């Protein structure tokens, strides 16, 4: 009998050996990656909420996580976090769809200006494309406009300086402007703005559309930064809600399938890679352990498994022994100025005694 293709298949190609048998923490769906991120490579990250985990771990793992819109040191950590500094490379907010990502690049370079680019509500101003970026919205139109200008400058710097771009594809369902097709991260009226069926329409992107948007993005990004390498992941976080008239589980399966197919298709482009964080989280070997009680949020154990494999396969481990860069010195400006002002106030007491 002639040998068949499965006769000498490697273990990773056999479910029983690669998924069914190993301990959950030992399952490793990464077979080969043809890149290694060094500690000096500038890594940028954006995408859906799952991408926030990747950003955090890259930063904590001592890699050169690129942040082009850092919090000002005068803002304490809790204030900076509340205002979404440092969550991603710039204050993008969540970018759930490929269409949003393409749109962001074009907006940052002045190639697309949405017809509706501010929502005013109860005297506050909201960015329709980053409605949660500023708690309570911007206080004035001028504050919003300057913040956006500052943000776009940071976005351009990110695109121009990054060596690697990790993008997590999150959704296929999207609400868009009927005026010009501008894509919103969330349905208008849910976080800010007001829903109007005359102005906004629902789309559920197909794999072909996601591939087309991502391909256009990659082409335009490479025109700016020819050497950038792109790592795609698919968010394992299920849809919070679906606008399709069907069960959310069915819609979730569709979205994730589309995004997974699109990601796979895109890896046929030069220097575009896929990292299987989706498989690590959703694979049956963990028996649901990587989902929290709400069956949507991802547990830290699951994120840890993903990032352990990421660092193992995608980063240059030969530099692991190098000492981590010293943390930047603590900004002591406020502390010192409190001392200065107290001295001035003490002097005032002496003078008036």
């Amino acid at each position, binding site marked *: 009998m002639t040998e068949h293709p499965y006769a000498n298949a490697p273990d990773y190609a056999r479910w029983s050996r690669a998924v069914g048998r190993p301990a959950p923490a030992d399952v490793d769906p990464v077979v080969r990656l043809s890149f290694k991120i060094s500690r000096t490579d500038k890594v940028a990250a954006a995408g859906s909420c799952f991408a926030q985990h990747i950003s955090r771990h890259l930063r904590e793992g001592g890699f050169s996580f690129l942040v082009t819109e850092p919090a*000002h*040191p*005068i*803002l*304490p950590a809790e*204030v900076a976090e*509340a*205002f979404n500094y440092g969550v991603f490379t710039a204050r993008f907010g969540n970018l759930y769809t490929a269409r949003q990502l393409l749109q962001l690049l074009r907006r940052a370079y002045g190639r697309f200006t949405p017809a509706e680019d501010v929502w005013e509500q109860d005297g506050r101003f909201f960015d329709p494309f980053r409605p949660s970026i*500023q*708690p*309570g919205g*911007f*206080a*004035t*139109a*001028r*504050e919003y406009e*300057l*913040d956006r200008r*500052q943000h776009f400058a940071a976005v351009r710097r990110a695109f121009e300086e990054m060596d690697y771009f990790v993008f997590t594809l999150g959704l296929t369902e999207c609400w868009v402007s009927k005026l010009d097709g501008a894509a919103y991260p969330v349905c208008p009226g849910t976080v800010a703005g007001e829903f109007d069926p005359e102005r906004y329409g629902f789309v559920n992107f197909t794999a072909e559309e996601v591939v087309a948007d991502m391909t256009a993005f990659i082409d335009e990004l490479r025109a700016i930064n020819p050497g950038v390498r792109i790592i795609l992941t698919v968010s394992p976080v299920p849809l919070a809600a679906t606008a399709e008239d069907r069960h959310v589980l069915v819609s979730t399966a569709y979205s994730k399938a589309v995004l997974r197919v699109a990601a796979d298709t895109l890896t046929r482009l030069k220097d575009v890679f896929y990292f299987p964080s989706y498989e690590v989280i959703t694979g049956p070997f963990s028996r649901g352990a990587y989902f929290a009680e709400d069956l949507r949020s991802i547990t830290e154990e699951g994120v840890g498994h993903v990032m352990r494999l990421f660092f193992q396969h995608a980063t240059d481990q030969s530099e692991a022994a190098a000492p981590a860069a010293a943390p930047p*010195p603590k*900004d*002591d*400006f*406020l502390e*010192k*100025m*409190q*001392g*200065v*002002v*107290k*001295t*001035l*106030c*003490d*002097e*005032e*007491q002496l*003078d*008036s005694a």
Partner: protein
Amino acid sequence: MFYIGHSHIACIVEAARTRGEELDFINLWGFGRFGRPVVYEDGVPKLHPMLVERLHGPVFSTLGGSAHDVLGLVQHPRPFDLILPEAPDLSLVQDSDILPSVALRQVMEGMMRETLDVLTALVKTSTEPVYQIESPPPYADGERLSQLLADVLETPVGGAFLHPGSQVTPDADSGRYKVSDKYLRYKLWRLNSQMFRETCEAAGGVFVPHPPQSVDAEGFLKPELLAFAGHANEIYGAMVLDQINALAALS
């Protein structure tokens, strides 16, 4: 009448003395030896018993009034600015990070938390009206302020707050501490005033704005009202005293 505050009480006390009056006041800068001016019971600030005992008549407070100087008197090595909601068209420091005004307000509230709670507790405890006096407006001339800073900070006491590597360092060229742009200082002062106004009024107190005759056309403290070390002087204090006496006559 009872007066309570921090350093900005000094110019009012001086003005009163010049008029032959001795005010019943307490400057909380020196209160530390008695404990904290407020204690928290189930998260609710309660005035220290010693302060409760002192309350009588209408109360005039000059609490706070330094948060804006801590943030903005000396230019930060990474310049920042903000858009003031009540005056969004004021000029901006060139090449500065524009920070959300709400975020800077939160920074100030963090710094002033106890003082704001003292004010709240004061208003809630007093059986008489409580008036929060706005801190003096900022002074425009950064050069003069820079010299005043140098006069204070180049002393053993002042210099102790500064050290090589500190973010608060003299300008490399002039050797002086670089005072922030006047409009930034103005904006931060307005944020500080807004914070105290809202806290005072939420508790049921009355906020008393600065004397209108104390400022120039742009809203900066007139030169003749500046004391040493960046505070307002006795002449300004007299203007505030006139406001206080008018309010006391009404209540």
